[in-house]
Structures are given as C-alpha cells and as structure tokens.
C-alpha cells in the first residue's frame, strides 16, 4: 500500500498547477524556449478556446470528438467564465477521481473473491458438509465487515494519514505509540471507530471499502482449515475477533504507520517491512490463524488411522474447486494492482507491471504444483494444481509491486512446489488435518512471499520517491540490500511469534467457554442438518466411503 506520502500531500493543488505549467513549457519548441522565456498560462488564454456549439451537440457525437471538452469543465462562477483556477482544480479532482474509481473497482474485484473461496472450500469438502462450509464462507462477509466497521479499521488505519493518491486522508491522524529503546513503536490507530466523527469523509470511505475486503479475505482462509468439524457459533466468534483485533493489529504495524513499517526509519533496515498487497498482512495472518484453529479442533474422524497414517478424504466436486480458483485468479487483479490505491500519480502506472507479475506467478505456481505431483505420484493432480495457482498468487502478493517478471516467474514456480511439500509435511509429519490446504497455501506461501520481497525487489519501483518514509526504491538482497531481507525476516518472526500466539490463545478460550468442535455423531452425520438445519444436496443419497454411514433424504 502506498503509505507515508505526507510530503507529497502538501498543497496538492499547487503541485498540479506546476505540473500543468510544466507540460505547457515542455510542449513548446526547444528553440523557442532559448529565445524567450515561456509565458505562464493565464485565465485570459482560456477565453479563446472554442467549444462545440449547441447545434453541433444536438446532432449527436458518433465519433466521440465533441464530448469531453473545455465546455465540460465545471466553472466556479459561470458569469466570469472559465478561469485557470477552474482548470487546475479540475485536473486535481480528475486525478483523485481516477484513483477513487480504480481503488473502488479493485475492491469490488476482491470482494468477488469471496465467491471463489466459497467454491474452492466447499468443493474440497464432502457433500454432507456443503451447506455448512458454504455458509461459513458466506457469513464471514457479514461478521467480518461488522467487526471491522466497529473497531478493526480504526485500529489498523486510524493513524495512517498521508495517502496522497486518495487525497491525503487527513482525518486518520492519531497513532498510539510506545517509546522504547529511544524509538517510537506505533501499535494501533485511534481514529475511525464506527467511521464516525471526522472520518465521515469520502476518501476514508474508499480506503475502508478496500481494506475491508482484504480483511475479509483473511477471515475466509480459516474456514477452510477447520471445515467439516467446526461449530458455527465458535466460527462466528472467532471471525469477529480476527476482524476486530488480530488482523487490524498486524495491518497497522505493516500498513498503518506502525512499528514494522518504521524499521527503515528507526533501524536503517531497508525501507522497513514491505508488503505491497498482503502476503503477510492478509494471507499469513489468515493462514497462521487457520493453523491455530486446525490444531485446536483436531483432525476429522477417519483422517488418521490408529498408527497415525493418513487417509485421503477427497472433496465432492473438483469442477467447483477449479472454477473457484479461476474466480480467485480474476479477483487477484484487484488485490495486487489495486494496492497502488490509484492509477494516476506517485508511480501508480506500475499497475501494468503488477498485473503481469500477478498473472505470471499464478500460472507458474499451478505449473510447479502440477509438475511436482506428476513426477511424485504419476498423475497431474487437479486440486493441487489449483492450490499451486493460489500459492503462486499468494506468494507474489507482497513482492508484486517491487519485482520484475523474471522474479515473479521464479517466485510463483517455487511457491507451487512449496505448497505441495507443505501439504505433505503438515499432513504426514505434523498430523494437522487441513481439508483444503489453507495453512499451506496462505500461511507457508504467504511467509515465503514476505521473504521474497527481501530477495527479489529490483530497486526500480518509484511510488512517489519513497516508501515507508525512506527515500529511494525497495531493493532486495539479490540486488544489493541485505537490510531489506532482515526487515522482512523480522516481519515473519512477528507473524509467527505474535499473531499466531494471539490467534491461538483467543481460539483456545473459545474452546473452553463455547467449544470449537461438534460432537462425533454430528461430524459423522455431516454438519449440514445438525448445525444448519438443511442439507446442501437434499435430493441425493450421501455416502461417506469407508465409514459405513449414509444419509438418505428426499428422493
């Protein structure tokens, strides 16, 4: 995310005016500039600009040459006519409008990723749990949004003023900090609870929407790891906590001006912790919470034999899974390029590069996983190819704004292989039952993506001349800055050491007071009827292979 642009946020209209005058000067012939100084543009110069007549416009504009002229610029005083101030203000508003629309549309794409997650997770679960799994994915949207509106957004972004791409964000201006070891350690923001008071602001609303759908992505990761045995009530409470506390805390430290983002300013570690679109903030937080919940609820009945050897428990609809993966890949074009929070100014035109990096890493991720599974097991596994695609996308999310296409390709491919290794390790060695591989896809590959910033950032990005308050471009170890890698490593340590612990402790408390896991009878029957009151597929006979249990409904 673009952060710490305070210097550029100063007097934006003056900057725009200078830019307009600069363009006028550049447009003049070089020879003329030597002979006489360029004259500044004045309001009088605007009087002679011809605009289409009413008669011309009445004939229609099939060629598109008459629509969008000086006549469409809003005048402060129509009697005085068009002034230079009108033009300059229009230029400034157009830039912010472009950035608003870009950020909102990107946010809408990310919101649609919820549908992708729902399909992937439901398809990878058994049919007897389809309604329950789908409903968890459906309701994270509501539970998460409410928690984030009440307090999550304020904790995360309440002290992050200075995003000039959205016009400055000045109401979000108070960060709670501790002073330790002679440095300020930003911990959480304090403006924006319920989006009330001064934060009733157009730019704050745009930022809220965009950040909210990111948070929702993190919450929906957890539902996959705990699927097929998680009590719906426990899920609801856990999701609220993740959206209100855990996610926003790390979001603040990384994106809201908190202490991790200041590792460069305070400790001379590159540009501080850098996470362009959220391999750490979104995916690692979600993946590590998924790991904590999966540990607490334990493996499904039938997943492991008495000797500890695992059994395969295939999902019920692979077409649903792969369709979900496609939807997620589509939504990721909002996730990564949208994280510039704009398409105009501050180097935001890098969105083209970011989109291509996203595309490449996803494709090479699926290729890496497919190749690994084909070589190791003799078949190109469909579900792991889908997980490989997601792994590549997760891993490129943090570095997408800082690396070139070669880096993106390597990162994606490595993540595709890594997710297969991680799934096997968790299932066979750790004996953690994760029905959809959420911990591996989002946790393992998220942490890998965070580290990749510190390795592959090529030093060519220029988002307004600085990042996290440090001048210059983010540069990784392979391009000469070992300090950036250390900053990323400290981010990984914080995710594992603090965020995982926080998630674990809270979910352990839920387990004590509410109970996280359904009873064995409910689990064997399937969660649809006991937990949700309705089957996902009421007219089918559902049989769980190997367990000798079936449900026959309807007909």
């Amino acid at each position, binding site marked *: 995310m673009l952060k710490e642009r305070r210097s550029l946020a100063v007097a934006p209209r003056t900057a725009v005016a200078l830019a307009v005058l600069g363009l006028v000067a550049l447009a003049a012939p070089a020879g003329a500039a030597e002979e006489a100084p360029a004259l500044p543009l004045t309001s009088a110069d605007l009087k002679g600009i011809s605009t289409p007549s009413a008669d011309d416009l009445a004939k229609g504009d099939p060629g598109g040459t008459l629509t969008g002229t000086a006549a469409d610029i809003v005048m402060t005083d129509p009697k005085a006519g068009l002034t230079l101030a009108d033009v300059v203000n229009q230029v400034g508003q157009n830039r912010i409008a472009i950035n608003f629309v870009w950020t909102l549309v990107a946010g809408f794409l990310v919101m649609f990723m919820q549908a992708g997650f729902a399909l992937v997770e439901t398809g990878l679960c058994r049919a007897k749990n389809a309604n329950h799994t789908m409903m968890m994915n459906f309701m994270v949207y509501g539970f998460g949004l409410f928690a984030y509106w009440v307090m999550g957004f304020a904790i995360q972004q309440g002290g992050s003023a200075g995003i000039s791409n959205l016009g400055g964000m000045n109401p979000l201006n108070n960060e709670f900090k501790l002073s330790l*070891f002679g440095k300020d350690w930003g911990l959480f923001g304090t403006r924006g609870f319920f989006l009330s008071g001064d934060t009733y602001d157009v730019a704050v609303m745009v930022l809220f929407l965009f950040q909210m759908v990111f948070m929702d992505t993190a919450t929906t990761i957890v539902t996959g790891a705990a699927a097929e045995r998680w009590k719906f009530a426990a899920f609801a409470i856990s999701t609220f906590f993740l959206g209100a506390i855990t996610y926003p805390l790390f979001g603040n430290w990384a994106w809201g001006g908190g202490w991790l983002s200041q590792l460069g300013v305070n400790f001379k570690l590159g540009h501080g912790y850098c996470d362009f679109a959220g391999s750490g903030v979104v995916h690692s937080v979600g993946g590590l919470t998924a790991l904590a919940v999966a540990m607490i609820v334990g493996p499904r009945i039938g997943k492991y034999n008495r000797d500890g050897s695992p059994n395969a428990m295939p999902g019920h609809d692979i077409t649903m899974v792969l369709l979900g993966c496609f939807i997620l890949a589509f939504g990721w074009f909002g996730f990564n390029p949208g994280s510039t929070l704009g398409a105009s100014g501050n180097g935001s035109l890098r969105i083209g590069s970011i989109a291509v990096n996203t595309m490449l890493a996803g494709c090479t991720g699926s290729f890496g996983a497919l190749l690994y599974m084909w070589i190791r097991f003799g078949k190109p596994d469909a579900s792991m190819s889908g997980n490989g695609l997601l792994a590549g996308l997760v891993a490129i999310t943090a570095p997408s704004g800082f690396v070139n296409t070669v880096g993106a390709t390597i990162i994606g491919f490595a993540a595709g292989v890594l997710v297969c290794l991680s799934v096997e390790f968790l299932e066979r060695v750790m004996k953690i039952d994760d029905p959809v591989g959420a911990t591996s896809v989002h946790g393992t590959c998220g942490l890998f993506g965070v580290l990749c910033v510190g390795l592959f950032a090529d030093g060519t990005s220029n988002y307004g001349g600085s990042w996290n308050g440090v001048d210059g471009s983010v540069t990784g170890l392979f391009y000469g800055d070992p300090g950036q890698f250390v900053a990323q490593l400290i981010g990984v340590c914080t995710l594992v050491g603090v965020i995982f612990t926080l998630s674990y402790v809270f979910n352990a408390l839920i387990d004590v007071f509410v109970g996280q896991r359904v009873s064995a009878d409910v689990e064997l029957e399937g969660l649809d009827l006991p937990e949700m009151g309705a089957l996902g597929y009421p007219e089918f006979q559902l049989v769980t292979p190997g367990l000798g249990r079936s449900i026959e409904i309807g007909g």
Partner: protein
Amino acid sequence: MKGLGLALIVGGWMVAIGGLVASEATMVRLAASLAGLATSLAGIAALNGAHLENAVWKARGR
C-alpha cells in the same frame, strides 16, 4: 507442554527483536532473526505435539 510451546513461540519473537535493538550490524540482526524464527517454529511443533496427545484418531473405536 502447551505452555512451553507458547513460551517458545513468543520467546522466538523476542530473540529477533532483541537482536534488532542490541546491534546495528546486519549480520547480527540476521542471525538473531533466524534463531528467533527457528525457536518459534520449534514452539509450534511442541504445541502441536501437546494437542496430538489427545487426538481423536488415538481414541479407542475411532
């Protein structure tokens, strides 16, 4: 066992932060971060081991 696991997980993070504030040398900070991460991962393994003691698949009849 769960307490030990959690202590290792948080302790690993404190090792990484300790290295950050104790030295300005990049290599020292790198070594402290790697040691801290390894400690935290060992803590997760210990915590998981504690949960597996009562795993459902170890129970009779499941």
